């Protein structure tokens, strides 16, 4: 591996815990490179380093210095969470677990040579590679929209400045104006995400701009937690949210960011704020490395998240095509632990355990009105399959809903601790 200065420094910052482990002394520690420091990647790097006690050389490649979680970014839009509390740094992963955190982009993977090339020029060797690059948008999926238009019509589906921008647009919308969302087709990141966002925007508007309207343009017949959201919108925001489905042409939508119009199957609507969430596919690096199939996602072996294209590579989180698990932070975190165990088994002869996968997704509909959906999963030969699931019920009492919301805060603190501490 070509060790550049900053990599060395990160390694030195790792401190005595790691250096004390005898395995570190040899120059030939097995090498694992992790691309992407999000829900899947940060978890994988942390479990690999922590559980191998310095016996693995773990490099985490991530361009940003602060990871802004998409989870709770809707709550930030709604005024229930601060921006600072969405951001998490990689300091502890380097200092406490001895992970070499390299802030750079991976721009190429040579699968034969088992190397990763970074934008800054470094070339990293690997014995195993983990990629968890999240999503990219499918160009042209909403005609008229492109990433170049993301300031006029934000997606806010990668958290950070986009989320801030959308929040400002909602708060400054003219009185009685129209907020439109173009929702994505399946499959996409966080199935209840767009609808939680509608709820949070409705919350803000009902307080600041009660005559405003929300137009939800949705190409799907139905959506996640639909009964719960629709019940909540009718109760908390009566008359504010209008959903247009495929029966009214919402599967044939284009936008004009200059004119601020949305064209729904020939019917042109003038809007004031427009949140376009385009169709999605695996993050670009997965395509560059030829790990994806025609679906645009990277197929994996259900038992261990190994790429079906390359047995030295594991694909986690949103980018993977695995079966029934939703594309969520919880899922990515769960998958990362399975892959980390398998990698430690293969490289260090650690005990191998059978995969266990789980997911729970909370959503906030209004103040203290939280709901959840979740399931446990098991691998079959063909896919990761649901074994047992649950969902909040309509008509639940306010105390239970408040408790569910409080639990979601507990979960948020739990998962970020599980990724970054």
């Amino acid at each position, binding site marked *: 591996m070509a060790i550049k200065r900053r990599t060395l420094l990160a390694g030195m910052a790792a401190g005595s815990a790691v250096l004390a482990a005898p395995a570190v002394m040899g120059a030939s520690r097995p090498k694992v490179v992790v691309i992407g420091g999000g829900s899947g990647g940060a978890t994988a790097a942390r479990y690999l380093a922590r559980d191998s006690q310095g016996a693995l050389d773990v490099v985490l490649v991530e361009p940003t210095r602060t990871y802004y979680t998409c989870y709770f970014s809707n709550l930030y839009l709604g005024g229930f969470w601060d921006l600072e509390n969405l951001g998490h740094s990689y300091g502890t992963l380097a200092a406490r677990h001895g992970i070499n955190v390299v802030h750079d982009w991976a721009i190429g993977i040579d699968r034969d040579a088992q190397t990763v090339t970074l934008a800054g020029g470094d070339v990293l060797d690997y014995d195993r590679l983990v990629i968890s690059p999240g999503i990219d948008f499918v160009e042209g999926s909403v005609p008229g929209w492109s990433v170049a238009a993301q300031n006029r019509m934000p997606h806010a589906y990668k958290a950070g400045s986009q989320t801030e921008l959308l929040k400002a647009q909602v708060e400054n919308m003219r009185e009685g104006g129209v907020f439109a969302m173009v929702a994505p087709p399946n499959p996409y990141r966080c199935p209840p995400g767009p609808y939680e966002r509608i709820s949070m925007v409705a919350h803000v508007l009902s307080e600041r701009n009660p005559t405003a309207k929300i137009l939800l343009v949705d190409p799907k017949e139905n959506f996640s937690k639909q009964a719960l959201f629709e019940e909540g919108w009718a109760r908390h925001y009566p008359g504010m949210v209008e959903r247009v489905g495929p029966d009214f042409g919402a599967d044939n939508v284009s936008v004009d960011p200059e004119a601020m119009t949305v064209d729904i199957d020939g019917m042109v609507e003038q809007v004031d704020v427009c949140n376009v969430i385009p169709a999605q596919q695996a993050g670009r690096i997965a395509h560059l490395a030829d790990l994806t199939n025609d679906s645009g996602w990277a197929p994996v072996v259900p038992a261990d998240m190994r790429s079906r294209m390359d047995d030295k590579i594991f694909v986690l989180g949103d980018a993977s095509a695995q079966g029934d698990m939703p594309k969520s932070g919880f899922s990515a975190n769960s998958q990362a632990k399975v892959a980390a165990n398998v990698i430690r088994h293969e490289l260090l002869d650690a005990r191998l355990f059978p995969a266990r996968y*789980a997911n729970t997704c909370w959503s906030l509909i209004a103040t203290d009105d939280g709901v959840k959906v979740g399931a446990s999963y098991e691998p079959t030969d063909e896919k990761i399959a649901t074994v047992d699931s649950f969902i909040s019920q309509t008509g639940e009492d306010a105390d*239970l809903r408040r408790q569910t919301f409080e639990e979601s805060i507990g979960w948020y603190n739990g998962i970020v601790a599980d990724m970054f501490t």
Partner: protein
Amino acid sequence: MLTITPPPGQRRGQAGLRRSLTTLLAAMAAAAALAGPVAAQSGDSAPETVQSTTTIPRAVELGDVEHGRELWEFECAACHEMGPGAGDGIGPQLNRVFGRRAAAVADFPYSDSIRRMGRDGLYWTFRTLDAYIENPYALVSGTRMSYAGLDDEGDRADLLAFMRLYSDQPGDIPEAEPTARRVEVELPPEVLEIRGDREWGEFLASECTTCHQRDGAAAGIPSITYWPEDRFVVAMHAYREGLRPHQVMQNIARRLTDEDIAALATYFATIDD
């Protein structure tokens, strides 16, 4: 009336664990027989008089009401009241407790733990009362009721038969219940002797730490680190068998085997960072 001095809670060892598990499994068999909770009412409209035992044959079948009355006086009355004009003491009044939601008496200063169970949907039925009285912590980890538990199953049935008189329609006990309660489920001794496989526990625990923080920080989701192993095991069984109502934890516990639970208990009791 005799005043009892409750011994300090949480002093049960393996024997307590064995009893709790037996109850849980027996209760599981009874579960199917129980209809949903009857409409719960708050206790301030207490029944005028205790109905005569002659009108309530099934309540009698549940146990020996007279013996139950003695047990009540001895075990419970120092802290709880029942009957006309009953008010809150150290514990809440227990009129109409059958079918009542846990922690439902307005203004009583319940523990957070039992309030949480009430919000989750814990209702007092024969099955849940039996489990709570046998070992309060199995059902409600952080309960303020410092009562060590009533070990004898027959005694509990007698006590509940008596308490049943202070609930609505005491005669209306589901047909199958008294019989179902007597179905003995033999718990294989090896279940109780399982020594947790810590390494397996650590792997399984990685599922838990997405929500329960390893360092024990608890905001919104309770801490589960450094619990005595038997309490941990009993709590997990209570979710697995549906005695504790929480959707997430039931879902998680349903796929855990006895070995898995033992392994988790060992790991979380000795977690080291």
